[in-house]
């Protein structure tokens, strides 16, 4: 309990101090963007991680929340810091509405219905341009209201602290939901719906509640996005946004509360910092995602937890010996692959460069394989220690 409180205190301190460390305008807006995506990804994980529902249309709640928020901002009845609540309310209402329809089935059917609803709402944006803003989107101005306690929310730093405040509120709320009976039963429904039903819970009702709640938080994230960017376009409703939050959540790890947080940070960093260096960043991102799906379905968080368990079992030294051996050939293979991608993108046609890259790639891949074959024994030592520890 004290450890958990210490974690939250650390988070609060980090959020409060972050703008002092990264004081450049770009860094502050990056932090705002990350905070919004963290809330969005955590809300997505309420469905995928906690309840076992794979959704392809989560952007619906985010986008509608953002649209209602930007209209609320423009109408001016709601003070700026509370605008995300409008988004949350919209997300909750649509969560109740669509959740009622979608949660009648689980599994693949749920995935397909959410995709259908996502496409439907996105297509609606062309039918009602007055509300959805058409091609140009809806723009607003967050600094028009009377200042509250001297805060106009014009400067980005004030928006940062607003995002940070909502981030902490939402994170605590979502974390507490995981510990309520509803949150626990959602896990039961995810793992074994028949058994949950036999014990007397209605899986459909549990899924419905979780989808509605996750709509609420996605709507808050959308509301914050409306305040932060001061423009909401149809893209925030699109399959692209749904895909992005799915990729971020899964990449971070669906089994852990910290997973989506990590995923959101990685995605924001890749889409801004890496994008500043190479326009091929979505390719690297997609490749990373596929590699994770194939080799570490638990996401980045599961890899971190694995190291922690290895350390607890006293086998981290063995594991690191394997990592150290693999690091060099893997680095060469990745380097050669990156070189090939960049040459493709820049249209390099020199045969020598291509042959060189291909040669390095082949040799390094072969060396990786060879090293892995020779390191298997040491890896086996580490994993045996891990299993022994788990059994004890």
């Amino acid at each position, binding site marked *: 309990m004290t450890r958990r409180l210490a974690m939250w205190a650390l988070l609060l301190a980090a959020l409060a101090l972050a703008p002092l460390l990264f004081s450049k305008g770009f860094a502050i807006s990056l932090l705002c963007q990350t905070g919004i995506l963290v809330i969005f990804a955590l809300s997505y994980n309420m469905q995928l991680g906690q309840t076992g529902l*794979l959704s*392809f249309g989560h952007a619906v709640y985010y986008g509608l929340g953002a649209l209602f928020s930007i209209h609320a901002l423009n109408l001016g009845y709601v003070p700026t810091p509370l605008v995300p609540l409008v988004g949350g309310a919209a997300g909750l209402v649509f969560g109740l509405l669509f959740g009622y*329809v979608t949660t*009648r*089935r689980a*599994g*693949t*059917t749920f*995935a*397909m*219905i959410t*995709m*259908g*609803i996502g*496409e*439907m709402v996105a*297509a*609606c944006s*062309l*039918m*009602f341009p007055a509300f959805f803003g058409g091609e140009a989107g809806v723009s607003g101005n967050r600094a028009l209201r009377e200042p509250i306690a001297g805060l106009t929310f014009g400067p980005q730093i004030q928006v940062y602290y607003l995002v940070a405040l909502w981030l902490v509120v939402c994170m605590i709320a979502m974390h507490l939901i995981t510990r309520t009976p509803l949150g626990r039963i959602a896990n039961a429904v995810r793992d074994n719906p028949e058994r949950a039903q036999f014990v007397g819970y209605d899986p459909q009702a549990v899924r419905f509640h979780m989808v509605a709640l996750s709509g609420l938080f996605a709507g808050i994230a959308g509301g914050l996005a409306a305040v932060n960017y001061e423009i909401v376009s149809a893209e925030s409703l699109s*399959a692209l946004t749904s*895909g992005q939050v*799915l*990729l971020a959540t*899964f990449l971070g790890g669906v089994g852990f509360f910290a997973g989506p947080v990590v995923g959101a940070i990685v995605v924001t960093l890749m889409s801004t910092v890496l994008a500043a260096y190479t326009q*091929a960043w*979505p*390719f690297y991102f*997609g*490749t990373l*995602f*596929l590699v994770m*799906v*194939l080799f570490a*379905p638990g996401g980045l968080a599961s890899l971190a937890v694995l190291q922690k368990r290895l350390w607890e079992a006293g086998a981290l030294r063995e594991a690191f010996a394997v990592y150290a051996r693999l690091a060099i050939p893997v680095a060469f293979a990745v380097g050669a692959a990156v070189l090939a*991608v960049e040459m*493709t*993108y820049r249209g390099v046609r020199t045969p020598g460069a291509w042959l060189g890259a291909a040669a390095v790639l082949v040799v390094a891949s072969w060396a990786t394989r060879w090293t892995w074959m020779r390191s298997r024994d040491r890896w086996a030592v580490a994993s045996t220690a891990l299993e022994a520890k788990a059994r004890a």
Partner: protein
Amino acid sequence: MELFLTSLLNGVTYGLLLFMLSSGLTLIFSMMGVLNFAHASFYMLGAYFGYVISTHVGFVPALLIAPLVVGAIGALIERYGVRRAHASGHVAELLFTFGLAFLIEEVVHLVWGKSPVPYKVPAALDGPLFTVFAATFPTYKAFMMAVSVGMLIALYAVLTRTRVGLVIQAALSRPDMVEALGHDVPKLFMLVFGGGVALAALAGVIGGNAFVTEPGMAAAVGTIVFVVVVVGGLGSLMGAFVASLAIGILQTFAIAIDWKVPGFERLTVSQTAPVLPYLIMVLILIARPRGLMGTRET
């Protein structure tokens, strides 16, 4: 009458193209039980490969080579990707194909850029075939229809009249039994996946120049193909055929009608056209989850 006839012909052409895409998806789904989200991406790859091959050696070789090459890529992806992801469960498999669709789009961006490529209808098939009232019917559309129908007949013949088809049909419903009888089911999976992907690529080769070959073309048809497969009934080829035609015709008709939607000031039927397929899909999934002719629930 003129509007009716042209819309019908356009709808049937579009519907037949949709069927080419959805037949492969249906085959793959019935065998593996997983929806391939990257299916439309192979359609796009087919179009791009068709463009590259046809500029070098001509359209007719492209019609053969491109589906074979893309089908081979598909088979390799099944062998080293889908099969591995399947070991971690259905969600991982679904996510794998989803990530694959994302990645293929990026590869297309990298290799061919973000703007459309000049993939043109071959000169021999360019031009009007016959005239309906004042509107002309292009030769290429007739060619597309012929290829689709030919493919339908060939697929039906392979599935019902050949030994491989019989084994595939048996493996669709009783893979364990087929395995016990000494057939290599994993290899069959690879064959069916590659075959389905090749069908999608064929649709790309003949659809890419009729429409536009650009990086967004997979996303444009990707979800519609899902609608077709779900409405027709997962796993039912006949259902996919009926649903393809129905949705193709419905959409082309809706676009052509400019009536006002009752109760709305400025909304016309043609503006609602993009929503209609999804509305139908959601209603079908709620009311009859196995689709029009499907035999199993999603």
